[in-house]
């Protein structure tokens, strides 16, 4: 349905009300005017008739001929129709009648009354002339006796016509009033409308969060106060919005800074908040997951199971779950159900952190304890056994005794080697921690040469060709003794795990800012599952075999630590059956070392400022 504007609604309403009122007034005025006019005409006609009756002579009246003349004279003078009626009701003369007879008039009420001596005026419908007439009749008295009646009559129309101009004036005034009222109403309505429109517009702007424009000139004062209230409201809303924005900003900052993954889901289990750590841990990157459910966003059965349980239990829940995305991860996760002030359930908060590393360290530690005891116990058991045998005195043969002492000596050496390695490991660790590692710029080639020379005899013994490749001009910041030890360990391993007649290569390659020394063999290789743990202390790929070929189980761990002491790292690449390649990567500060140090100082000072 089409709605009309305010001013038209107002105008239409006022048109209806004033129209009806003014119309009613006009109609009433007209009828009252006519009534008054008729009453006035009746009384004047009555006076006229009485006067005429008094001035008429009886003889004249009684003779029809004279009566006719008289009636016409009087009719002209009184501006009315004049009729003379005898006592018996016969009409003797009539100023307007054509010569024909008129009906008997004695039964007319005014005539009846006049014959009884009372002058009377009435208004009635004339059957003779078929119109409304005003009649007045007065008796003509002869010797105290009414002998005839003079009747005057005037058509109503004539009287009404004489009132017409007055009535018209009433109508004109009424019409003018109407137009005036309507125009005033229209103007007021228009202003009211423009004020309301402006207010409504301002409210709309307020609702849309836009800035309130300066107030227009209102026609009504009430709207000024409405505008003031709006302005106050606007300020309140702005303050709330600022508060909300700052809360939001703080929350974002907190969520982005903490290293735990945080996911918030609403009551219908859709994600409404997720922080950067959670995205990283779950490999979500920049994917838009807001509004998705957990199963849609996180593709992990264990994670989903935890979320389902958390939903079903309705209590805080925590646990450890495995997650495999780009890599295998372990999460420590806990859930918390969020409740509103009126304790309606509004969502669930999940907080989780990666514990892969911690778990791995725990494994390493427990393995280390087990391994170190085992490694130390083996030679001790052996020594103990042979020493007890010798002490028991059952062995007489000189050869046996020498053999036993040889074994004891070998096992003591082994024990010594293990302790020696452990000590050098702890020295390395301490050196790393206290940063007391002494690095000097030296040629690389002599170091490699020395380590190869040291292993050459062992290589020859197993018929393995040992070659090295290093440009004579390569310089590096190293601790020559430690680097040589690391290389000897690697070459020694390579020889041990190569087949008879194999080949071991030591290759040094110089990059832009780094240096890589790789020891490569074509021996038995290492299975992939061992690679991540191979640098751990006492980690054995194949428990039986390793001890056969000797070694303390600490060689690679020492290599790793030496690389780290040089600010570098050690890596391994291996394919079972094809051989392994162990590399020491050294970063070279080169000539920019001093520059970098300065840069760091500068940064620190700037941070202090």
């Amino acid at each position, binding site marked *: 349905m089409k709605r009309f504007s305010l001013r038209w609604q107002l105008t239409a309403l006022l048109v209806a009300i004033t129209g009806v009122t003014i119309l009613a007034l006009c109609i009433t005025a007209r009828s009252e005017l006519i009534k008054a006019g008729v009453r006035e005409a009746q009384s004047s006609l009555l006076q006229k008739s009485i006067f005429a009756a008094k001035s008429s002579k009886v003889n004249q009246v009684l003779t029809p001929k004279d009566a006719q003349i008289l009636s016409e004279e009087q009719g002209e003078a009184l501006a009315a129709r004049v009729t003379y009626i005898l006592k018996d009701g016969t009409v003797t003369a009539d100023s307007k009648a054509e010569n024909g007879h008129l009906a008997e008039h004695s039964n007319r009420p005014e005539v009846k009354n006049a014959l009884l001596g009372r002058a009377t005026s009435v208004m009635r419908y004339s059957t003779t002339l078929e119109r409304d007439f005003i009649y007045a009749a007065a008796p003509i008295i002869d010797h105290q006796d009414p002998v005839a009646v003079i009747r005057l009559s005037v058509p109503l129309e004539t009287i009404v016509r004489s009132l017409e101009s007055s009535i018209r004036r009433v109508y004109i005034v009424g019409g003018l009033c109407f137009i005036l009222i309507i125009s005033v109403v229209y103007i007021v309505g228009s202003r009211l409308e423009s004020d309301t429109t402006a207010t409504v517009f301002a409210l709309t702007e307020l609702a849309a969060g836009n800035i309130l424009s300066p107030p227009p000139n209102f026609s009504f004062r009430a709207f000024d106060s409405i505008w003031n209230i709006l302005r106050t409201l606007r300020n309140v809303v702005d303050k709330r919005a600022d508060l909300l924005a700052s809360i939001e900003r703080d929350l974002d900052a907190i969520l982005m800074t903490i290293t735990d993954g945080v996911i918030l889901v609403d009551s219908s289990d859709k994600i409404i908040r997720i922080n950067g750590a959670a995205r990283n841990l779950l490999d979500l990157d920049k994917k838009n997951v807001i509004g*998705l*459910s957990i*199963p*849609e966003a996180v*593709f992990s*059965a264990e994670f*989903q199971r935890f979320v389902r349980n958390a939903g079903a239990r309705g209590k805080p829940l925590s646990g450890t779950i495995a997650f495999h995305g780009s890599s295998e991860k372990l999460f420590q996760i806990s859930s918390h159900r969020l409740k509103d002030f009126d304790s309606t359930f509004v969502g669930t908060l999940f907080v989780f952190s990666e514990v892969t590393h911690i778990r791995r360290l725990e494994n390493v530690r427990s393995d280390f304890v087990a391994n170190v005891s085992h490694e130390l116990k083996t030679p001790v058991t052996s020594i103990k056994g042979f020493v007890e045998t010798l002490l028991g005195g059952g062995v007489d043969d000189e050869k046996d005794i020498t053999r036993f002492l040889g074994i004891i000596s070998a096992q003591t050496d082994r024990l010594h080697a293990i302790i020696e390695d452990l000590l050098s490991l702890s020295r390395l660790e301490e050196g790393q921690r206290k940063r007391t590692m002494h690095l000097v710029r030296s040629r690389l080639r002599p170091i490699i040469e020395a380590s190869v020379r040291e292993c050459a005899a062992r290589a020859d013994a197993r018929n393995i060709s040992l070659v090295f490749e290093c440009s004579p001009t390569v310089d590096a910041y190293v601790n020559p003794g430690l680097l040589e030890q690391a290389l000897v360990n690697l070459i020694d391993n390579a020889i041990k795990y190569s087949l008879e007649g194999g080949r071991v290569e030591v290759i040094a390659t110089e990059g832009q800012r780094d240096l890589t020394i790789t020891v490569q063999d074509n021996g038995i290789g290492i*299975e*992939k*599952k061992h690679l991540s743990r191979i640098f751990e202390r006492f980690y054995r790929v194949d428990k039986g075999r390793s001890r056969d070929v000797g070694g303390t189980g600490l060689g690679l761990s020492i290599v790793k630590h030496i690389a780290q002491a040089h600010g570098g790292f050690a890596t391994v690449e291996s394919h079972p059956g094809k051989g392994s390649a162990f590399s020491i990567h050294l970063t070279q500060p080169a000539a920019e070392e001093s520059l970098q140090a300065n840069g760091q100082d500068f940064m620190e000072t700037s941070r202090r400022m």
Partner: protein
Amino acid sequence: MIKNKAPTNVIQANFGSEFKPMSRSHLDREIEKLKQMILALSALVEESVHRAVRSVRDNDVELARMVIDGDSEIDSAEVDVEEECLKALALYQPVTIDLRFIVAVLKMNNDLERIGDLSANIAGRALSLAKHPPLEPPFDLESMSEKTQKMLRDALQSLVTMDSNLANSVRTADSAVDEIHRATYKRVQEEVKRTPQHATQLITYLSVARHLERIADQATNIAEDVIYMIDGAIVRHTPEGQI
């Protein structure tokens, strides 16, 4: 006559304006539920494949048992999804995209259950491998399983994001896995001749490769179901790149 006709019109108008939107939102809810269910199932299946492969790689008997036991959970989830699909079809008589979604979910459901069986089979192979002296797999188990799992994951991801491009990429990835499987077959043939004492392990590995290849095929089927759901086109028997 006219008097009789008028009320019928009124009822039709009511159906048009009030009855339909109500049933629409019910259907939406049902479809949302189905989506969550199939996603939960697919995560279960994906986990099972992952664990099965790991059990072979690490000779982990315990993990293999876990996979085999977990298959019943997948089976019961499959039954639930199927019942939910049938319920939705019977109650709401969906059309266009909704119908296609439910049909696609029904088919995907079968494929996923089948993948669950295959991964249980792989775990079974891991158990039998553990009974023999360890031997390096005659093929790149790691990269084959990674490729297969990526296909499976992408196929399911394309369902979540309604991404037909991703689904298409799954179809193209299938040939790489097929290639590895063929190469493995040849490799095993040669190795068995060379080292007949390892025949049992080699053949077991061959069957692991075949199961993985079948999983990749099923992932392709899922991707095709997703394409059907999004575009309404059945691409099953057309070569890739022709849509």
